[in-house]
């Protein structure tokens, strides 16, 4: 059964990496660059990821585009939790990756404090080329991941509320 699993895993990885449905969680100026990536010049549809979905039920790629402050953090966490597996997360820009230059009490110092992140795209904001590079990295990652048949595991873990509060009081 091992060889069958590995063939199916390869096939599923191939299918999933070229059909990413994005949930653009755009909160700040990186949103402009997201629009630029999606528009015709840079054309994210070349990578099969052109279809933004505004319901987490239909999305498998959560793009966190911009600054996440502490009031947004539980909302972002819930959106992630409501997405169906398989799902991946891209931290778009330095604010989402690490808080950026908002090193203060109001801003989440990186979304990886609450949800697992697959690819970090640096830049303030990142150029569309950087975003496409990040997307290709994510595609490589998805293609090399193990995709199990009839996956009936627990949902992907997120940070509990008290973890979030602890990470704030570092």
């Amino acid at each position, binding site marked *: 059964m091992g060889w069958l699993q590995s063939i199916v895993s390869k096939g599923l990885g191939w299918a999933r990496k070229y059909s990413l449905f994005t949930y653009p969680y755009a909160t700040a100026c990186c949103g402009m660059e997201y629009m630029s990536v999606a528009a015709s010049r840079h054309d994210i549809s070349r990578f099969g990821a052109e279809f933004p979905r505004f319901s987490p039920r239909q999305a498998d790629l959560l793009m966190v585009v911009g600054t996440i402050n502490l009031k947004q953090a539980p*909302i972002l966490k819930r959106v992630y939790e409501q997405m169906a597996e398989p799902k991946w997360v891209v931290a778009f820009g330095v604010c989402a990756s690490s808080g950026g230059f908002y090193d203060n009490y109001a801003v989440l110092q990186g979304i990886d404090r609450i949800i697992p992140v697959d690819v970090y795209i640096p830049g303030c904001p990142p150029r569309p080329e950087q975003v496409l590079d990040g997307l290709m990295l994510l595609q490589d990652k998805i293609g090399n991941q193990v995709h199990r048949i009839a996956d009936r595991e627990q949902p992907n873990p997120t940070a509990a509320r008290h973890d979030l509060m602890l990470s704030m009081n570092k």
Partner: protein
Amino acid sequence: MTPTPLSPYLPLAVVLLLAGGMAMLIPQITTRLGPRRPSAIKATSFEAGSESSGPARQRFAVKFYVVALLFIVFDVEAVFLYPWAVNFQALAWFGFVEMLVFAATLVVGLIYIWKKGALDWES
């Protein structure tokens, strides 16, 4: 095979079989291959990440119904006005008088509901 009256429909039968087979196969494939990891939070309604503020099936004021009906009436009036305006030259005075009668009927109805207080949103 001798041709029967039904034999031209053979391709149709093949298409039906294929379509039915696909319709049964594809949900099976997604169930077998796709992950299924249910959780309580996934089962709750999506309100852009916020807490749900209550059930969607609530009672609405009957005024919305009246407004919707009025909108339809005057929308249909506009639908009739456009072709009349396009053919205004050809229809000439006959069309003009007909349209006046039509619009006047609606105006009478408007005056009636106005008097009845249907447009009074606050009361």
